[in-house]
């Protein structure tokens, strides 16, 4: 008896440990949803403000709507096609059946990235423009197999004589199916539906490749935010979803049940109860899912009810504009904006190149603008329509010429430098000199304390600059040297990251990191708000650095070019540029807007460095396909080392 108790205790303990493992990240998300600080790594006090913001954020609500509607529709359609197909497959001869089932398994077993990309290739090849319907098609495609696999076993168990009996009693084959077979296989269909719904909800990669303009699911929205940090409203939304589903589960699990009759045997009765319970629960969950979809769609119905003749498709970095600016633009011009986000230049490029989505205005970086222009993807801007161009500091028009020689294609939006961010306290404790040069990133004393940028050009820029070379070099020996230097540095590096330098540095995770200057204002304010006992300082290395520009361009296949120009002109207005600066904190090239800023911000050297500090700085240039490949090869060698 005693050993039995110990055994049971051990089993329960094991169960608790596993559940803890599964739910620890979810609890973490829940805690973060109440964190007053936007930083993932620091606790800034309790707040519920993100819950309010979540409902106000149209991007989150839209993404939620699309996520649910796509999950629901794709699961529903997949359930229908899958069930019908399963019935057919069940009646096939052995060989065709084995082949069909084998094919059916492909989307489930294939790596998601291959599925996603191959579907994208097909949509482009067939001229289906990427958008809501392509995501839906893709989701249906990977959902059907789950339905088929859940329905097949139930079909095998179905008693055909009952089906025949129904026909004998006068039912048509269809009636007989719905009255007799359907109830038998229904639990399988429900399981399949639920599984499909879950898979669709959780999918990121396939959606990422098959989505088009103006459509985000929660996954893709989150991914586009990864670069600049997740909005805490996302955690709030996840918490709400989690609590809702959990409550539904609890209600259905503990709903009273009336037991009838004396059970034949304990186990059998419990089994029956369990099965019934299971079906009820699945049913209710499916229903709950539907209710959520229905209510959200009703709420957003108004928004989509009216169609827009006057449109503008904007493609911008994630979290790279004040949402109010978009609203103001729509109000003032009556143009409806479809706003979309990308994470990297390289991710944006093929989208524009393929032309599957026709954007009117895009905001790439310097070298990418050059590449797009050279490949004929950009339209010349009619500057007559952009009188506000005069607000842009001439220095930046000058800088632009390094990638847009005649200032024909681009209008600067933001700019900045790349530098070293360091934690004063850790530096002091270790008795290390304040970093002033890129080569300090090779100081073994910093082992495990360095955060490097996880992108080819930025990483090579650091190495090339510390070697005294141009960051736009295509010389193979110089690049090989840079590669060796990076490999040599790798053991010292804690992680290669993009967005997370900011959060990790605020959290005191690392002593020193390579960062974009635009993050500085946020970092400095956050350090102050959180009352941290260290400060984070920014330095532009002596060897010079990357001076970067993100500018607005108009793709050559834009359908609303004039609207795009109105958009650019609007963003060049000093008050609007200031609004944007306040929101995204990346340095503005707009001198009129800068003049509107507080004095101490104008004098903040991290954001607006003195021009004499920028002597050795360069702007990235497009180096051609061959050089691109070489860079990528060398970077891969660094990473795999």
């Amino acid at each position: 008896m005693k050993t039995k108790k110990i055994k049971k205790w051990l089993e329960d303990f094991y169960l608790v440990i596993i559940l803890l493992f599964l739910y620890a990240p979810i609890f973490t998300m829940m805690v973060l949803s109440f964190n007053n600080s936007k930083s993932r790594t620091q606790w800034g006090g309790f707040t519920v403000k993100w819950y309010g913001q979540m409902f106000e954020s149209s991007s989150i609500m839209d993404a939620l709507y699309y996520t649910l509607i796509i999950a629901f529709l794709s699961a529903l359609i997949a359930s229908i096609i899958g069930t019908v197909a399963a019935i057919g497959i069940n009646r096939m001869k052995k060989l065709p059946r084995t082949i069909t089932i084998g094919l059916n398994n492909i989307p489930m077993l294939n790596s998601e990235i291959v599925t996603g990309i191959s579907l994208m290739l097909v949509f482009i090849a067939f001229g289906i423009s990427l958008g809501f319907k392509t995501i839906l098609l893709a989701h249906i495609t990977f959902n059907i197999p789950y339905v088929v696999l859940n329905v097949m076993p139930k079909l095998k168990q179905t008693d055909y004589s009952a089906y025949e009996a129904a026909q004998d009693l006068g039912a048509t084959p269809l009636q007989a199916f719905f009255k007799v077979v359907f109830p038998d296989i229904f639990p399988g269909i429900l399981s399949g539906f639920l599984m499909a719904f879950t898979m669709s909800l959780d999918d990121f990669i396939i959606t990422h490749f098959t989505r088009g303009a103006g459509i985000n699911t929660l996954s893709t929205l989150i991914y586009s935010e990864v670069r600049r940090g997740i909005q805490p409203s996302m955690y709030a939304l996840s918490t709400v979803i989690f609590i809702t589903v959990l409550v539904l589960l609890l209600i259905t699990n503990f709903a009273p049940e009336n037991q009838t009759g004396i059970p034949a045997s304990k186990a059998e009765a419990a089994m029956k109860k369990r099965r019934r319970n299971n079906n009820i629960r699945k049913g209710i969950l499916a229903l709950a899912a539907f209710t959520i979809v229905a209510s959200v769609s009703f709420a957003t119905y108004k928004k989509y009810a009216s169609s827009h003749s006057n449109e503008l498709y904007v493609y911008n970095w994630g979290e790279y504009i004040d949402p109010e600016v978009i609203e103001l633009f729509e109000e003032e011009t009556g143009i409806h904006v479809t706003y979309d986000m990308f994470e990297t230049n390289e991710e944006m490029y093929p989208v524009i190149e393929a032309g599957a989505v026709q954007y009117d205005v895009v905001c790439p970086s310097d070298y990418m603008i050059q590449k797009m222009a050279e490949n004929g993807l950009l339209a010349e801007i009619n500057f007559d329509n952009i009188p506000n161009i005069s607000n842009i500091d001439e220095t930046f028009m000058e800088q632009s010429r390094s990638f847009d020689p005649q200032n024909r294609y681009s209008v600067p939006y933001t700019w900045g430098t790349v530098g070293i961010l360091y934690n004063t306290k850790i530096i002091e404790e270790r008795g290390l000199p304040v970093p002033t040069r890129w080569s300090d990133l090779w100081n073994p004393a910093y082992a495990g304390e360095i955060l490097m940028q996880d992108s080819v050009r930025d990483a090579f820029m650091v190495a090339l600059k510390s070697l005294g070379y141009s960051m736009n070099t295509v010389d193979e020996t110089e690049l090989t040297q840079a590669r060796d230097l990076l490999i040599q540095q790798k053991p010292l590096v804690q992680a290669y990251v993009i967005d997370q330098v900011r959060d990790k540095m605020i959290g005191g995770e690392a002593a020193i990191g390579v960062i974009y200057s635009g993050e500085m204002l946020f970092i400095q304010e956050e350090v102050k708000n959180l009352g941290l006992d260290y400060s984070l300082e920014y330095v532009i290395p002596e060897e010079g650095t990357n001076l970067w520009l993100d500018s607005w361009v108009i793709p050559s296949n834009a359908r609303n070019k004039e609207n795009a120009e109105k958009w650019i002109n609007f963003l060049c207005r000093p008050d609007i540029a200031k609004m944007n600066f306040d929101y995204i904190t990346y340095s503005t090239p707009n001198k009129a807007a800068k003049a509107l800023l507080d004095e101490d911000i104008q004098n903040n050297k991290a954001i607006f460095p003195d021009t004499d500090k920028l002597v050795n700085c360069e702007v990235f240039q497009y180096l051609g396909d061959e050089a691109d490949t070489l860079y990528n090869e060398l970077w891969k060698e660094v990473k795999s080392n």
Partner: protein
Amino acid sequence: MNSPKTKYLAFPYIVWMIGFTIIPLALIVYYGLTDKTGSFTLENVLSIATPEHVKALFLSLALSLASTVICLLLAYPLAMILRKKGVGAGSFIVFIFILPMWMNFLLRTLAWQTLLEKSGVINGILSALGLPGIAIINTPWAIILGMVYNFLPFMVLPIYNILMKIDDNTINAAKDLGANSLQTFLHIWLPLSVPGIISGITMVFVPALTTFVISNLLGGSKILLIGNVIEQEFTRGSNWHLGSGLSLVLMVFILISMALIAKYDKNGEGSTF
């Protein structure tokens, strides 16, 4: 449904599969076997043999194998316990394992960063207890943890389902015939749950082999897996031909998985739900 015409009900799905499974794959094959000028080449496929690709592939194989084994070792006893508790509350417990999947997996994986970091939650708790901290973030161990975390339900559910189908009396019969717990496990539980185990293994191994998100988020991007290589070829390197060629190599492993499933799980008994 008894009529021979019933089999044509599968027709719409077959058309669907041709359109959205076979043609897309054919395109991948086409890209994988051609270069940028469109002429035939094996270079893309053979590039798997370059040192950095071989290294990435072997690391991927090692990590996904390790996480598959860990998943199996965690999931089997778990499924056994769940089966035991199953009578009465089974489906509720199963839903508890599916529920995390309703939270976005990017967010969940990011949350692990917060938990594992040097000054993260776990180390905070450990140091409060006076214990030494753990430093697995940005190492292969963190990637394995992330894989186990994300794919464990795919191992638990098929095994649980197959175990639920085993009659108590089959187990009792073995004990009755003199088998002790270990013998019962080896001769009855294990062979009877093979379809579930195989299904679980493929459901964990394949996505683990091809993941790039987990290694990016938890490996600090210091560890290059084959999934990362392919992803970068498609999204950053813009070399779809190379990416497709490498995908073709990965498909070999997927074909092996399919063959395994076809062999051991003929009736789809090991399906996840």
